[in-house]
């Protein structure tokens, strides 16, 4: 017995040591980034076109082993922890548009793309999109993948039945202010009881804010969420609630989807990528939808970037891959693959993007999205926008869903913002 126990111990010890050594060894082999041969690219499901990546792998096969890894779950937190851990950092990293403001203050973790000759490509991309990838100190962190011009999706037959304009051109020109848009909502509700123009007040509030060039915190780290541009958006959202044109449904719930399917929610303000959400969420509505301009002016919602991390050993080669992945031709392919709306205006005229879409009754949706993408205001996005925009969005939601008094909601939002601003070191 004793002998075998000792033997067991030895075996266990040897095993432990081997594991520890193995761990050390593998830790040493790939400290940060990768060797020249490997080129690791991180993206998320639907972040890049699959066909494009396949082609890139084949194209660069002789020089590098391009490993495109689809990261599931909460992308940003995984990327941040990996970068903070300083090991196994990808060479090329996708950055989501809504997270961009939080990466830019740490521009020193990325390679400045201008040093690799990015300026040469500038003219091919949407100017406002290009600027979003540049940090305050001028470092260019992100190279534009796609963007998300917002448009007005509606169900033609329901609009027709309610006596509203129903051809895309008419909807665009007749519902071109919020006043007229809300008026249409009232008419819709009167003609077809139980029907609402929009799901919730946040659709109004957030889109009005996105239409403008200011958000919640400015470049000087000053809170501007109490100013005119937010106040206007707030008042419009409250008015939408008062006039009864928003439902009490929560976006994305089964209730909301079935209301959309039944034509009880025949309209929404959505970015170009909402096309896919509608197609997969309510497939039975095929053919009923049309797209028109949203009231006042287009806004942008979403759209991402590719970056090269400091861990990359061969930035020049990585940059060559990026610029190829995101050229006019491949951006068009990305649209076909994953519905990524190109940030290269020259793509809009290509055949793949001008296909009539049977889901939209044969409409060429690019006629709406293309011009919209080129009319978007340049906005400054602060890393503190998320923290200081959330209380306001939460409170307008309380107004919309719980029926909270708008005055009280606004003052609650402002006092919360004041507290958070103080905590984060943002001047109020």
């Amino acid at each position, binding site marked *: 017995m004793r002998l075998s126990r*000792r033997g067991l*111990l*030895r075996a*266990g*010890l040897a095993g*432990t040591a081997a*594991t*520890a050594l193995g761990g050390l060894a593998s830790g040493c082999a790939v400290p940060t980034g990768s060797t020249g041969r490997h080129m690791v690219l991180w993206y998320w499901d639907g972040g890049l076109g699959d066909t494009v990546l396949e082609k890139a792998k084949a194209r660069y096969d002789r020089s590098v082993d391009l490993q495109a890894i689809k990261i599931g779950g*909460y992308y*940003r*937190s995984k990327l*941040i*922890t990996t*970068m*903070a851990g300083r090991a196994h950092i990808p060479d090329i990293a996708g950055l989501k548009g*809504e997270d961009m403001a*939080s*990466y830019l*203050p*740490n521009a020193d*973790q990325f390679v400045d793309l201008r040093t690799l000759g990015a300026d040469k490509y500038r003219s091919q991309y949407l100017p406002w999109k290009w600027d979003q990838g540049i940090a305050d100190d001028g470092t260019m962190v992100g190279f534009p993948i796609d963007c998300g011009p917002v448009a007005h999706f509606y169900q033609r037959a329901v609009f027709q039945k309610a006596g509203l304009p129903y051809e895309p051109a008419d909807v665009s020109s007749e519902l071109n202010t919020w006043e007229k848009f809300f008026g249409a909502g009232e008419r819709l509700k009167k003609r077809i009881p139980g029907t609402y123009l929009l799901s919730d007040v*946040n659709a109004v509030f957030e889109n009005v804010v996105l239409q403008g060039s200011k958000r919640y915190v400015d470049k000087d780290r000053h809170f501007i969420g109490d100013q005119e541009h937010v106040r206007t958006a707030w008042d419009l959202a409250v008015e939408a609630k008062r006039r009864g044109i928003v439902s*009490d*449904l*929560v*976006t*994305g*719930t*089964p*209730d909301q989807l*079935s*209301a959309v399917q039944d034509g009880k929610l025949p309209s929404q303000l959505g970015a170009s990528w909402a096309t896919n*959400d509608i197609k997969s969420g309510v497939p039975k509505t095929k053919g009923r939808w049309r797209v028109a301009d949203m009231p006042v002016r287009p806004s942008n*919602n*979403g759209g991402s970037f590719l970056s090269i991390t400091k861990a990359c050993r061969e930035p020049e080669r990585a940059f060559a891959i990026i610029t190829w992945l995101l050229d006019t031709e491949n951006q068009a392919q990305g649209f076909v693959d994953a519905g990524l709306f190109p940030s290269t205006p020259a793509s809009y005229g290509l055949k793949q993007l001008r296909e009539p879409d049977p889901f939209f009754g044969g409409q060429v949706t690019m006629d709406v999205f293309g011009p919209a993408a080129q009319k978007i205001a340049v906005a400054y996005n602060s*890393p503190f926008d*998320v*923290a200081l925009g*959330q209380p306001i*969005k*939460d409170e307008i*939601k*309380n107004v919309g*869903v*719980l029926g909270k008094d708008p005055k009280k909601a606004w003052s609650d939002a402002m006092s*919360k913002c004041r*507290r958070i601003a103080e*905590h*984060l*070191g943002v001047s109020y």
Partner: protein
Amino acid sequence: MATVPALEKPPAALAETPAEQPKKGFRKYWHLYAAISPFYLLFLAFGLIPVGFSFYVSLHRWDGLGSMEWAGLSQYQYLLSDSDFWSSVGNTILIWALATFPMIFLAMVTAVMLNSAVRFKNVYRLAYFLPNVTSVVAIAIVFGSVFSTNFGLVNALLQAVGLDQVAWLNTPWGIKIAIATLMTWQWTGYNAIIFLAGLQTVPSELYEAARMDGAGPVQTFFRVTLPLMRPVLLFVLVISTVTGLQSFSEPQVLLQNTANESTFSGGPGHAGRTMVLYFFQQTFDNNDFGYGAAVAWGVFLVVILFSIINWRLVRRRGED
């Protein structure tokens, strides 16, 4: 018997040469230490060091990527005055209470029934245990449909008995009840199995004696079974407290919105924002890792506090 003197000898030797012993002891037993080391090494790497690091982070301002800035105890100071944190504590405790007490009652009933079941015992056990090994995300998606306003099963039942629809996932109480129901459903079977194990340790002579003394089934349960089950009850309570106070996936998935909105906001009025959800929102939505770590320590203290209360309650009753 032969081993007894052999065991007694080493302490005597120890007393004679105390100075030499520690070194010798380690040399003698190093392979034993080595044998138990894997757990401690793993615990060090994935338990102790992260815990220590989270405390270190909580004393700084950090966006998760850039350089850390010393903040002293200011994160904790803000935590104490943060009404959002306290409301999330309140939400968590309410949801926990709404989930745990029905759950313990149901689990006990289930266990007693399982204990007396004659046929298909194992089938029942498996069936009751199954919810616990099902992915919370999958359950939450199903419960999202069950509690949906117009087409949910719950509202269909309410309407069948002539009651009004309730917008479960859109009202503060509805949200809490929906989350609590989900947790109850998930944990009842698990705890029933633990209770069942406890029930089976009660000697059958005691039941026989109780029956001889003329005790009915109810009296037997309260006078014999329950007192003997106290340690098991304590275990179940502590485990439910620790898991219930850290509920995260349930509200997160149940109340998540479109891809574009924060998934950690906890629904209208933040009614479903639990402590851990708030910690996630601060850390990963706001990139405020320092404050997030402070919130995590706040969560830790609340959980400890509740575990102590539970322990005292159950133990004192046991001593009476």
